[in-house]
């Protein structure tokens, strides 16, 4: 199965490169991209080809990082992040935290209306949070992001107070997240399929959802009344574009072809193989940005052998030359990660760069010390007659960025340099969940695109975490995570998460960080204002986009 898929993609890549390459070359001499967008201009229509069709259009149900660029077109949150990861007001005008950290009082804008004419006020905010806590509506949000929320109080129409059961700074991250986006209370009451969203579930954003053709496209039109852009935006007032259509094109070669032939003006998701094509075309531009949150990493299951021994964990890391592996799979387009936290996050700790990995001698010495001294007929290390096998189970529906191919490259590397047998299986979601819940795995792979890396680390590393596949029961780790969540001062939080990374990456070697997930947008040079959402690092909404005359 992986073999045929690889052949298929190789054939495809070659074929499209040949066919498209000739098209690209004939359209002009290559050189520096020419900027044809000019100054920002109002009016016009754009078509943007995106890879992922959202499962739901209701922001409360948001679960796909790839769908984030759609959310902020028609919905908005109380707060948002600026480029440095600080929270800035959006639908709020500011917030105040109580000295005991147990309540947050948020002042709201008074000039905002929803697309259906409903007024945005404190009652609307409360209606949204109450809806999120309805049983069966958004179980994951209620159980994770709103875990420490006691109640929401309407102080006056322009002030709302979030009362907590214990100090939790991540409530602010929730207020800046898609799940915390504000939906019109009327939509909450009357929408035909509230959880699925649609044209009858509306927000306050710069665009109004005009039409949804499942399997084909989403159509938005400008909200002419819009006048409450956040300070992070490139302009104020209504959006530049009259209309924007997002077309779902799942095949990357088809997306790129549609762009080079001018049928769409922007595409999202450009795989490594197609990036030279864009770069070589003077009428196109490639924009790239690292995602925030946690890096794509292999987490070692420390609850049973062989990874209960820190020496084996270190040996596994030293057996892989991550740079070589990334180059083989992604050419030069991937950014190596050195810590469990993405290099794009404000909490990223540089200290670990170059501190481990790519050292087969040390890997072999460590394995010898750990007692894996035997070798079987296939050349793998053994101990007491058992082969040094570690299993990585990947769920096929969630494999992206060719992570299955990357796993094969790591597999070859650890086998060759240290005699470790990495057994990779790409299976359906049910089988994967069974293996994970039944503790029948040694390696777990994951990356999370949370804007606050602390939220990702809570899920992945806390002994009570909802995706703790390390299965660590580490009191020190729990203490650091809890303190990080309860500490308001950014400086002190950075220090806490630095200590945490020291423990996870250096002292305990719980993870092998591989690369920092990134998003790419390729656009015609007539399109201006292409950018990424600050901190999150995913493509921004269409608010700042314009098309040159």
């Amino acid at each position, binding site marked *: 199965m992986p073999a045929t898929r690889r052949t298929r993609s190789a054939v495809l890549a070659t074929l499209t490169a040949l066919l498209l390459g000739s098209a690209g070359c004939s359209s002009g001499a290559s050189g520096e991209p020419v900027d044809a967008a000019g100054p920002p201009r109002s009016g016009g229509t754009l078509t943007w080809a995106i890879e992922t069709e959202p499962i739901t259009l209701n922001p409360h149900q948001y679960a796909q990082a790839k769908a984030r660029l759609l959310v902020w077109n028609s919905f908005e949150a109380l707060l948002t992040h600026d480029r440095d990861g600080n929270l800035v007001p959006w639908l709020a005008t500011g917030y105040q935290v109580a000295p005991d950290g147990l309540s947050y009082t948020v002042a709201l804008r008074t000039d905002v209306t929803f697309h259906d004419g409903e007024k945005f006020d404190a009652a609307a905010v409360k209606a949204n949070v109450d809806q999120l806590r309805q*049983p069966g509506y958004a179980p994951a949000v209620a159980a994770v992001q709103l875990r420490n929320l006691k109640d929401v109080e309407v102080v006056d129409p322009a002030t709302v107070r979030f009362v907590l059961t214990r100090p939790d700074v991540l409530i602010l991250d929730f207020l800046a997240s898609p799940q915390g986006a504000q939906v019109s209370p009327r939509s909450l009451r009357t929408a035909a399929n509230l959880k699925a969203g649609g044209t009858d579930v509306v927000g306050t954003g710069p665009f109004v959802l005009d039409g949804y053709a499942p399997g084909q496209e989403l159509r938005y039109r400008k909200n002419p009344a819009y006048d409450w852009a956040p300070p992070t935006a490139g302009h104020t007032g209504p959006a530049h574009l009259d209309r924007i259509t997002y077309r779902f094109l799942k095949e990357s070669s*088809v997306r790129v072809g549609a762009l080079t*032939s001018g049928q769409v003006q922007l595409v999202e998701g450009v795989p490594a193989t197609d990036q030279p094509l864009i770069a070589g075309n003077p009428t196109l531009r490639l924009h790239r940005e690292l995602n925030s949150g946690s890096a794509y990493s292999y987490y070692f299951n420390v609850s049973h052998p062989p990874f209960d021994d820190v020496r084996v964990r270190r040996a596994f890391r030293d057996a892989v030359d991550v740079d070589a592996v990334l180059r083989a799979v992604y050419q030069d387009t991937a950014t190596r990660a050195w810590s469990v936290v993405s290099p794009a996050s404000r909490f990223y700790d540089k200290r670990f760069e170059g501190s481990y990995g790519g050292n087969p001698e040390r890997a072999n010495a460590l394995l010898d010390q750990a007692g894996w001294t035997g070798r079987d007929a296939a050349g793998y290390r053994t101990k007491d007659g058992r082969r040094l096998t570690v299993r990585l189970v990947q769920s096929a529906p969630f494999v992206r960025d060719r992570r299955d191919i990357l796993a094969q490259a790591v597999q070859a590397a650890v086998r060759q340099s240290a005699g470790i047998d990495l057994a990779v299986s790409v299976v359906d979601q049910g089988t994967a969940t069974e293996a994970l819940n039944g503790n029948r795995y040694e390696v777990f792979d994951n990356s999370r695109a949370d804007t606050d890396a602390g939220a990702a680390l809570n899920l992945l590393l806390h002994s009570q975490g909802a995706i703790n596949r390390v299965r660590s029961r580490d009191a020190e780790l729990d203490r650091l995570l809890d303190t990080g969540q309860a500490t308001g001062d950014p400086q002190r939080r950075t220090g806490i998460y630095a200590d945490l990374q020291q423990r996870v990456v250096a002292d305990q070697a719980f993870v092998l960080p591989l690369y920092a997930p990134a998003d790419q947008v390729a656009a015609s040079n007539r399109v201006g204002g292409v950018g990424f959402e600050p901190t999150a690092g995913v493509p921004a909404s269409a608010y700042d986009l314009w098309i040159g005359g």
Partner: protein
Amino acid sequence: MGRDPADGRGDRDGTRLRPEPPARLRRVPRNRLRRVPGTRLRPVLRRLGTGAVVLWAAATAAYLALLAAPGDTVDSIVGDGADSPQIRAQVVAEWGLDRPEVVQYLDYLWRLAHGDLGRSYLLQRPVAEVVGDQLLPTLKLALAAAVLGVALALLASAGTAGSRRPWLRRVTSTTELVLVSTPPFLIGIVLLSLLSFRFGLFPVAGDRGFAALVLPAVTLALPIAGLLGQVLRDGLDRALDEPFVVTARSRGLHERAVLVRHALRHALLPAVTLAGWLFGVLLGGSVIVEQVFGRPGLGQVTLTAVTGKDMPVVLAVVVLSAAGYVLVSTAADLAYLLIDPRLRRS
């Protein structure tokens, strides 16, 4: 030692290998088909009955298969996100997954019998709406592809059957073989790259008018034309070797008339047998073609539902396809009667 069903001139060589051929089709009185209403109704009822059994069997088989698949429904609803007992309990309560499986199955059948297909776990919308939205684009695509494929196959086989122009025959036959063995995925990408990206003749994506239908329909039609063409040509060749062809020619019939009026009728029988296969190809092919061309349709819905283990949608698609099969095979049986008058006797 065949006989021409369209030209039942009698049994010249005396060996009765097949039933006595009837008179020419045009001489068969139309009303003979509906002569005895009672005896005509019974087969129809039997057909409807077997159809219902097929539907039930398909729904049940799909239900059992999904039940037997690893992981439970809660797993697929939770996905790869946060997973805690609290979240699971909510999911179970919301969908009534704590009831015994037999009860869930009977409940499902009961609702199915009343035309209620349930709600999609993944998309949170009524299944009838999810599938209903996507039915028309797929039907359009399938119909266009089927008509185009059959037309191409007829042209290719009728144009090259017999021993005239051997070089053309060889070229056509090879092309057909290549088309049959090329994955539609590749055909689609090549057509797109050339005709859409390079020359800009057709738009790439969506269900937006005739121009956007051309490339997907051609992609889906080519493999159909390839296989059907081979089968038809083979049938034509056999028929042209039969004695009745000599008779027909000796009556001074033009070669084209011999081919179309006499030989083609023979060749059509095995081709019609492939109707079920054709339906399968259209259904399976639409998954790939819709993905490549960014078209809405049932194929896309099926793919998403199967990978996400979205049970209500998968079941709806299975039942719908079973209904399609029943319909197509009934149509094929009727077509036999039209093509071969000998079969109307039994």
